[in-house]
């Protein structure tokens, strides 16, 4: 093969052509060289001590962790979990509505999904936080969680409904036919046969949704919360303002990774398993 290639009658015999292998090697060397140059430049120019002072001041880390970081972490988890459960229920109902035989249900669900997917979650959250102000005497239960759960749940439910709908539609038609041929009514076939399989299909994408929601729960920082209701972002931001240093915010930010990285790993495992089963 190699001989064949070298013996190709080239139209420019004066300039010797590089073999593909040599060319690839050259290209890789260039890439390493660029990387090395960037690293060297960074090391020369970056003031390590300043970085440490701004982002990772040990005394501030200590202060941030204190007692309240755990509370903030718990709150973030609570906001996320509540919204997720609500979104899951809402998403399932919306998905079934979109697949319904009743046309108005399909319309309603479509309008809802398109609206809440197109509007920023922040706007919805703000609107919910202001509802009690607009309607005198109105009270959203589970203060301050109730408003967050409903607002984020409604938004995430719109996204989830599309995922769940796709999951339901990914269950082969033969499954329904088999269930119906055994005398199951359509509702029972959906509950006993289709939905269990659909949820198995959508577990990886829904876990991704959970990761996104965990990060989106940081939007609650715009609400006027008391300290006991602070989530990680609000907590870190407040301390950062107070100390005029980024360390608390970075610490809080790293806490998100504690939640999201295991979830990311879980998604990868689930996806690998799903691929193997198929």
């Amino acid at each position, binding site marked *: 093969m190699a001989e064949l290639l070298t013996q190709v009658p080239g139209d420019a015999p004066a300039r010797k052509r590089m073999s593909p292998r040599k060319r690839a090697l050259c290209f890789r060397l260039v890439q390493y060289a660029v990387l090395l140059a960037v690293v060297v430049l960074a090391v020369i120019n970056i003031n390590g001590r300043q970085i440490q002072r701004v982002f990772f001041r040990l005394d501030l880390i200590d202060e941030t962790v204190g007692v309240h970081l755990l509370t903030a972490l718990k709150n973030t988890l609570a906001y996320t979990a509540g919204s997720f459960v609500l979104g899951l229920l809402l998403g399932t109902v919306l998905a079934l509505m979109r697949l319904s035989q009743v046309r108005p249900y399909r319309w309603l669900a479509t309008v809802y999904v398109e609206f809440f997917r197109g509007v920023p979650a922040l706007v919805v959250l703000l609107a919910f936080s202001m509802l009690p102000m607009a309607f005198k005497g109105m009270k959203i239960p589970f203060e301050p969680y109730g408003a967050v759960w409903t607002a984020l749940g409604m938004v995430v439910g719109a996204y989830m409904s599309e995922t769940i709908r796709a999951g339901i539609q990914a269950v082969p038609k033969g499954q329904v036919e088999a269930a119906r*041929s055994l005398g*199951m009514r359509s509702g*029972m076939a959906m509950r006993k046969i289709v939905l269990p399989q659909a949820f198995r299909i959508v577990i990886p994408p829904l876990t991704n949704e959970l990761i996104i929601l965990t990060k989106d729960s940081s939007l609650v920082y715009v609400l006027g919360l008391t300290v006991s209701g602070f989530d990680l972002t609000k907590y870190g931001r407040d301390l950062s303002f107070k100390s005029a240093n980024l360390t608390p915010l970075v610490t809080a930010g790293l806490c998100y990774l504690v939640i999201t990285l295991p979830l990311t790993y879980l998604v990868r495992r689930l996806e690998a398993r799903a691929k193997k089963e198929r």
Partner: protein
Amino acid sequence: MTDNPVVAPDPHPTVVPGPTPGLDGAGSSPTVDSGSSFAAGPGPTADPGSGAGPGATPGVPARIPTGDRNDEIQIYGLRKSFGQVEVLKGIDLTVHRGEVVCVIGPSGSGKSTLLRCVNVLEQPTAGRIFILNQEITHRDADVDAIRTLMGMVFQQFNLFPHLTALQNCTVAQTNVLKKPAAEAKEIALSNLAKVGLADRADAYPAQLSGGQQQRVAIARALAMDPELMLFDEPTSALDPELVGDVLGVMRQLAQEGMTMMVVTHEMAFAREVADRVIFMDDGQIVEQGAPDEVIGHPTHDRTRAFLRRVLDPTHIVAGQADPFDAAPPPSPHHPRFPSAD
């Protein structure tokens, strides 16, 4: 024996005499026990007189439904269209208690649609279908209740992948028939044992071979204690070496007197087990009768052409004229002609 006035050089006589007598004996034995039940209604073997005639439709009975409980499936004037395409163009058919009816025909002939219309997985465009004299096509019919009288086996098995073999056989029993879990499990296990898979009860479908999956699917249908069974190309998705097990289970079912309607390409099976073979083409029943008549001595050109292609595909070259149309077969021995095994 060969009274075929239409096609001059009939290639089949060379092969037919060999296997036929043997098949005759084997084929009729399973029907012996169910033979007594035919006495009440018009037996299928008596039917060909009307069925084998060109384009003949059996005479419409005086009463619809006949009311005879031996007429388990009654189909009158069944039509089915998908959009502009008419797939079934008026089917009249009665399947009697204990009878094994095999439906054969080229792909696209509507045989699967016919079967799926029987338990209204496809809604017929026109016509009436009665299962045990209950009209399943009636607007106010409790279709789900009537479906419990019929077991259906699909080409792609359609086992529930999230349930074990055992759970596949119990889920409808407990939820539809409202049987207690213990009783449902007992029935399921006995049916799994019947198809030879009692030891795989706790396996999930993905852990089973295709042949095993299809046998579980048969057990699942049988667990509902159906009056009749519908098979939609049950072996078409199987590797050749797995077909035998499934056909074995079906043969056993037939011997036990189960009423069966089988859409199949397994000519050997049809010949051995069927009481009646129906040849469909272009949405119509072209020819029906005893297997040895329809498969052994087809009277219609279309049946002959189809059987030549199915039984001896090696002699057909794609895109070329059927060599049988012009000349007698190159070899007197058809390697793929059905034998009694």
